[in-house]
């Protein structure tokens, strides 16, 4: 099946821009090329998990403080494309890499 555009979330898609597969936001902002993690093109906010609200508060703050909550926003319109609960210092998870009809799949 020929695919020139793939919707990922409500506001995130992969599409062909001038012959190059790029991640784009619904606002039109280009978040980066297909070969890279779209999160690299987002504005990152890293917070303590408990800052989200009382439903996340821990009874073991030492353990909780080794983790964080990451939010990845479109740097143009501020919509939130992704979140991660992650160990502080761990790389962003490269978790989505669909392929337009002409692309290749990375095995990394």
């Amino acid at each position, binding site marked *: 099946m020929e695919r020139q555009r793939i*919707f990922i979330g409500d506001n995130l898609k992969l599409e062909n821009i001038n012959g190059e597969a790029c991640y784009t936001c619904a606002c039109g902002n280009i978040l980066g090329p297909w070969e890279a993690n779209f999160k690299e093109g987002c504005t990152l906010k890293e917070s303590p998990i408990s800052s989200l609200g009382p*439903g996340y508060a821990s009874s073991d703050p030492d353990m909780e403080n080794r983790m964080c909550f990451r939010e990845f926003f479109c740097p143009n319109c501020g919509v939130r494309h992704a979140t991660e609960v992650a160990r502080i210092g761990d790389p962003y998870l490269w*978790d989505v890499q669909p392929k337009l009809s002409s692309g290749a799949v990375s095995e990394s």
Partner: protein
Amino acid sequence: MDETANIVWDGVARGYIPPVNLRISPSLKLHTQGATDVDPITYEVIRNTFTSINLEHGQTIQKLSISPITMIVRDFQCAILTEQGDVMCLGPYLLYLGNMQGIFTKWILENRSGDPGIKEGDVFLCNDPYVGTSHQQDTGLTCPVFWNGELFCWVSNSVHYSDVGGPVPGSFCLTSQNIHEDPPCFPPIKLVEGGKIRTDVEQLFLRQSRIPQTVAMDLHAALAGLRVAQERIVKLIKTYGPDIVKGVMNRMMDAGERAIEKKLELIPDGRWSERVYTEAAVPGDRGIYVSRINIVKENGYLYIDNQGTSPQVGSINNTFAGLVGACLAPLTIMLAYDLGGICGGLYRRIKFRPVPGTITCADYPAAISTAGVFNMPMVVATATGAVSKMVACADSPLREKAIAMADVHAYGGCIFNGINQYEQFFVGMSAGMASGALPASLARDGVDTGGLFWVPGMEASNVEENELAWPVLTLYRRENAAEEAGAGRFRSGLGVEEAWILHGTDRMDMQIYMNDSFVKNQGLLGGNSGGRAFFKVKRNTNARQYLAEGKLPQSFDELNGDDAPIFFKGPPVNLEVNDIWSTNLPNFAGYGDPLDRDPTLVVQDVSQGKMTVEAAQKVYGVVFKEGGLLDIERTEACRAGRKQQRLF
């Protein structure tokens, strides 16, 4: 150089991976002849009869077992398999147990067909995780169905038995550093031979248990289920002839595979991953560990690996069979939802590339017994995240089937033991997860206390059933609030909290509980993660005084007493007569940006008392006028302002 590279996947040193061509003793004759010209009406009659037989198998187990975990919660699975051990029909029960039955049945074909042989009237028992079970408590039985001296097919089941031995009541051995400190493992052994139960083997199995009468009843329920299924299939063969019935089986598998092929065509090629964190390899350990699942879809096949997962450690491990079962659970829900349990075609389209020596694909002799409450939900959750992102990239209508992550270890329940109100030793397993919460999907909110999606047939026990079975009173059981946990454009269904006090005994030991140090669930494509599962204990309370006055306490805060320090995973908690405790199954994950949620859905939650006005504004940026009406203009302004603030 990897020192483990030469270890074979034989079910002894490493989890068993069946080869494409099984090495079966020529002394075992297989029935392989299937008609190719079955008319459509006969095909549908036989196909639906197979589904009914498998359901009757499950209902037999449910009706004859006596453990609440089986009888009510339905922590079991049953299946019909081809003569080669490929799973054809799966029941609406614990999905991750499904393909394990295929794995250990194939092991039996390769390792038992010559000696001692596989004969009519045999039933094999297996609870060895390296051969093909999720943990030792999920013991499998598999029964060959013969016709005219040829092996025609198999019927099998896996049931959670409440105690199969080992150092801890309930058999979940948190402190095990290897499988020798776990309950015993039995590689496949004949429990029934020539139609007669081998009492020596039955006694060997029951002798390990602290509650042998209970386990015996459940074991006989499982045997009865096999008997029913076997008899119905033989009757089907007598009615239509073996070649017609086998022809339908072949066609069911092929049709299922074609249906999956069609679904896969809606998904672009690509790569998707999920990462979930866990903690505490044994009580007292402060380590943090990673479960990771990666999926590559290419040329109509899915290739799944667990690269990036932590090395095996302590008691938080599962074997290859667990990895496969856990990955297939969300794939079954999101890709095979319309196949009525005929899942064999799905399995043909998935190739596993496991990384051994990891917590999600451990080598012998890693400890496995706690997998049922820790690893298996964790791997299901990890796989759900990866599968959901993949399905989210599909064309409609498949993409709307993508659902967010459910529990990680939330489990929401507890395992306990003591002397009950009938003055007998007991082991109780409260499956708090059974109330469940369906997580958000790309198309709609989850369902409040909607059950657990990877156990479609699961039911929560009634409070009264618990109070009849165990020496407890439930003080309250209620839904969580719809606030930040699981928020999103579509929110998670709501989980449930339950509080208890002893009744009819003055002491009980809580062996397994969950008190997450940090949230482990991951939100889907911009959604909030689910909430934190907790287990709380308050000691020396005045709750009994409340009860004597005809009042029911409705929160920990209103009672006097001392909050007990509880770690994520610790030694048994001794509960005494004036202690109260609560378990919480949190809301699961949300999907999408909460600031994009339809404000009228937020208003609906507020009007139904599921969310406060303050939370509506904080989490969703929804502003109300005086009198409770939605203020659309201020809501839009609030949301626009919040999105701008995110950029600085």
